[in-house]
């Protein structure tokens, strides 16, 4: 666990989570959620859990993103808060 790399990854993760909750355009929020998910996968690589990391990268940045976009296109793209 390299101290500085871990600290940067965790900071970007928290900031991406807060930005995803603050955005009113839901498609932009989904892209920010993908950034969050990729940071989680990178932190897992840094912690030595490589099998969990590539599952999280495939699932978080691929499958969940596609699910999110399909759900948003079937419903509404704007959020009130």
């Amino acid at each position, binding site marked *: 666990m390299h101290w500085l790399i871990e600290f940067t990854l965790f900071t970007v993760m928290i900031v991406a989570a807060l930005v995803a909750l603050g955005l009113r355009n839901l498609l932009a929020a989904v892209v920010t959620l993908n950034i969050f998910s990729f940071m989680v996968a990178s932190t897992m690589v840094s912690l030595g859990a490589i099998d969990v990391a590539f599952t999280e990268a495939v699932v978080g940045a691929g499958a969940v993103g596609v699910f999110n976009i399909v759900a948003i296109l079937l419903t*509404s793209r704007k959020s009130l808060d």
Partner: protein
Amino acid sequence: MTELMENYNGFLVPAISFIQGYYAYLFLLALFTIGLYAMMMKRNLMKKIMGMSFIQSATIMFWIVAAYKEDATVTVYHQPLGLENPDLYLNPLPHTLMLTAIVVAVVTLGLSFALIVAIYRRYQTLDEPLLLERMQ
């Protein structure tokens, strides 16, 4: 004055070493709190689902951080390290459990998206107060 400095150091040094040792847990606590806030306070149902995914990620990361050992390598057999000393490898059991938890997280997300699409087709909104109004 020196007594004051000693007291100050006596408080500061353990605090800094605590943060250096456990900062990952503090970050994950913040992430869990953000997710809880989003699930309880946000009005849009998509934002609530995002909060749920934050909570799931925080829980999974908690296990991965707890499984970390200093001076240990990944759980793949390496010829020079041998198999005599298991302290040289990380513990693979929490990793395997969290692999299952990630798959379950995807299933819960898919189910909640299906429910959201059904709600939108019936009530034409995802905003919670408006939804409760239209359900009357």
